């Protein structure tokens, strides 16, 4: 997760804490479905940012769950569905495993985004994929998100040596560390996908990690089984 924009830091003490007692804080949501990308916000007016409008959509999210244990980071969204638009979308295309990102933005009075001019600069609240769409009804669609790390079997976010690519979370797909600038519209952080995109030189994971899992530790060239047959 990126640090907060400098403009909302305490301007005198410079401690990096949010000491300003009042903020105009909203969220941007990005859903990538194949070649189509949906840009939404929970603000009441469209937000012009990074060369496009992020359209008001009454999305709420709750139950962000991060942990240092082996549970997968997850999040649940509720999306207005009275006009069945989200139902239509979910019926027209398989939304599972589609990239979904939640950004937090601090806004000026005229809905300018403070401290960021590019999507890659935005603080990420959640970066993952759609896992399931449980219990949607005629009023509300519900969407469960899980972290990108679920594909690599790792827990996020935490700073650790992951088998999956870390650049997904640090700067994002096509970000400054990923450097990929081709036509591919998604990445799940796996080495396989990176190879598909011909970007493996910049793969940000440690793929040998998986091979070390559950191995016995020994100090010789060859593992010996003392007293065992």
């Amino acid at each position, binding site marked *: 997760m990126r640090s907060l924009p400098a403009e909302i830091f305490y301007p005198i003490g410079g401690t990096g804490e949010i000491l300003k*007692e*009042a*903020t*105009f*804080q*909203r969220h941007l949501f990005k859903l990538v479905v194949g070649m189509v990308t949906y840009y939404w916000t929970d*603000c*009441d*007016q*469209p937000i*012009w940012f990074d060369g496009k*409008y992020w359209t*008001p959509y009454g999305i709420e999210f709750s139950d962000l769950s991060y942990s240092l244990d082996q549970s997968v980071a997850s999040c649940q969204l509720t999306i207005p569905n009275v006009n069945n638009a989200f139902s239509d979308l979910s019926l027209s295309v398989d939304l599972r495993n589609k990239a979904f990102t939640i950004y937090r933005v601090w806004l*000026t*009075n*005229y*809905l*300018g985004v403070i401290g960021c001019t590019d999507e890659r600069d935005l603080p990420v609240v959640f970066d993952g994929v759609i896992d399931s769409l449980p219990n949607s009804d005629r009023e509300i669609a519900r969407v469960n998100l899980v972290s990108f790390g679920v594909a690599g079997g790792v827990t996020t976010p935490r700073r650790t040596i992951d088998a999956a690519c870390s650049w997904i979370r640090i700067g994002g797909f096509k970000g400054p560390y990923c450097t990929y600038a081709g036509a591919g519209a998604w990445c799940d952080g796996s080495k396989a996908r990176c190879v598909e995109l011909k970007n493996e030189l910049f793969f940000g994971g440690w793929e040998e990690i998986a091979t070390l899992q559950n191995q016995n530790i020994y100090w010789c060239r060859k593992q010996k089984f003392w007293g065992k047959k």
Partner: protein
Amino acid sequence: MAKYPESPKFSHALISGRDFVTRISKFGGQPAGTFNEQRNRQITFPIGTFTLLYKNLLVADRNTVYAWWRNYHGAYGDSTGVNFHFFDQALRGWYGEYMGRGTGNALTLDFPGKTLTNDATLIVYEDDVAQVKDTDFTFVSGGGTEGADQATWIVGHYPAVGAMITCSFNGYLRIKARFAEDGWSEEVPTVNGAGVLVYNFQTKLQELQW
């Protein structure tokens, strides 16, 4: 979009609420306003409800309002769900009202009002920066939708794409609205001094975001 009937006149427009939404957190059991309070603004423009009281209407006038309510299917909208515009009947001052967004190109926007007083009280803002009348834009009286006044930007001063255009003015406010409720109710008609049945009721309009 059509405008709500300006005749018959309602006797009084009660702005029963025009609200911002602020989420407030308090910590440590301290009362509001203490250092531990944090506030987060949730919406850009206030949203209100207008309750219109109709008193002693003749049946033809009552029928006009009822027909309008019926045509708009309560809270839903017209046959395709489109809502309507409502003009306030009192001249008042309005501040920071939404006009539209810049496109980077030639632009004409309706004011959310009509019969605006064309003096120093009329201010147009681009991203909170006041624009200069007759330098940045020209004021057009009554040229817009349903008689709304307009602002037309002058070449070389077009607002940037995505810029938020707002305004302050004295005039008759125009809002986008729907009926706040699906239901229609009215009092039993009474007989006035001339022996004619008169009708009393009220409608409640829900302001919508532009």
